[in-house]
């Protein structure tokens, strides 16, 4: 009897073996899960690299093609802006893009620089362009600043050009209240306005000379019917809206936000104004759960980009 109880029974041994094998399986599962996570992140990086490579290729192809409208050459940054608006095969310079879309250069640049900032592949090629042109890498590089300065000086000098003035006013009213980049643009515009006509013209000339592109005289600024197509592309690329949620909070707020974002195209930027004191906690949590990107938070303003 004693001998029998001292020896573990076959079922006990087999149970132990099963337990051991279970823990090994768990370890294998964990390892597999870790490997899969690593693989996913590598795949994401590869995808981003591929996107950047493809974009760089398209960009290089149009570098030496003159503007489809004015036949002038443009800088690398403008080539990239043309691609951002969907003109891979028929590139336009920034001035022609702006006039074709019936916008001011500053207004168009304000929206496009936000777009460049948000997309890694575009940001990377933007930096390459700055490097190649041997200028300081900025969201508004010196070559683009020269165009903005030219536009400003033209507005000041030509007081009868009401359409451009209106365009700039619209730009101010549409500006994001919470984006630093927009503020820097605003400051830039203000500083330009405070200068005298003469100094503006002079600065404009200097900047134009320092730009490595082979730009000629400024183009005409009348709207161009040939550029109807990009207007739609611009709208889908950088559409932005404001959603004033007032005092909505808790479930009401996120449900209304869900419906609002659902009605917008992927990638749209939505500025949510939420006064609820719990919004600083709720909106980041909600974005983490749903996959929408919370780009900026400055209660009560929240800049959210709709997921793809």
């Amino acid at each position, binding site marked *: 009897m004693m001998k029998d109880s001292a020896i573990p029974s076959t079922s006990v041994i087999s149970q132990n073996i099963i337990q051991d094998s279970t823990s090994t399986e768990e370890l294998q599962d964990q390892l597999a899960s870790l490997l899969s996570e690593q693989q996913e992140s590598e795949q994401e990086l590869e995808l981003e690299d591929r996107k950047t490579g493809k974009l760089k290729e398209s960009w290089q192809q149009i570098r030496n093609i003159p503007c489809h409208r004015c036949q002038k050459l443009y800088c690398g940054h403008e080539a990239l802006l043309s691609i951002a608006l969907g003109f891979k095969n028929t590139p336009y310079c920034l001035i022609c893009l702006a006039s074709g879309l019936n916008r001011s250069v500053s207004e168009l640049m304000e929206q496009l620089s936000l777009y460049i900032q948000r997309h890694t592949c575009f940001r990377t090629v933007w930096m390459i362009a700055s490097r190649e042109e041997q200028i300081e890498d900025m969201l508004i590089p010196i070559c683009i600043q020269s165009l903005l300065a030219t536009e400003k000086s033209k507005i000041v000098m030509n007081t009868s050009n009401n359409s451009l003035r209106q365009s700039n006013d619209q730009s101010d009213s549409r500006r994001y209240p919470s984006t630093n980049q927009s503020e820097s643009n605003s400051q830039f515009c203000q500083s330009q306005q405070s200068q005298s006509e003469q100094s503006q013209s002079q600065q404009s000339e200097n900047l134009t000379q320092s730009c490595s592109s082979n730009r000629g005289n400024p183009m005409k600024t009348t709207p161009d019917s040939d550029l109807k197509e990009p207007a739609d592309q611009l709208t889908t690329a950088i559409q932005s809206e404001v959603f004033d949620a007032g005092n909505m*909070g*808790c*479930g009401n*707020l*996120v449900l209304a936000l869900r419906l609002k974002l659902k009605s917008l195209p992927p990638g749209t930027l939505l500025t949510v104004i939420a006064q*609820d*004191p*719990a*919004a600083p*906690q*709720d*909106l980041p*949590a*909600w974005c*983490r*759960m749903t996959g929408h990107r919370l780009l900026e938070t400055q209660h009560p303003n929240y800049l959210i980009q709709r997921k793809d």
Partner: protein
Amino acid sequence: MSNKFCLVLTHAKDNVDRATVAFVVANAALASDKETVVFLTVEGVHLSQVGYANDLHEPGFAPLKDLIAQFTGSGGQIWVCSPCFKKRKLEENKLVQGAILVGGAKLVEFLSDGAPCVSY
């Protein structure tokens, strides 16, 4: 197994027994190395106000204000239901230390990985 633990407390002065036991269990969860949240909702939001718990003492337990201080002092989080808070016109500048106003989304996120939740 989730390393989080949530307690939903719906009472304050209207049921000091429940309010006290909730914080006793919350302290037990903290002591067990759990990331612990007490979610104050319905009448429970009154406990988020400084001084409210001063005179609440359930016989057989430590005074409620001590339990709350022990909880927040050891890293416990107090989340206060925002709509319940607003409905009762309580004051944001009188929140006890460590308490924050939250809405449903914050709680949902916390519980989303299967964290256990006990309601009092």
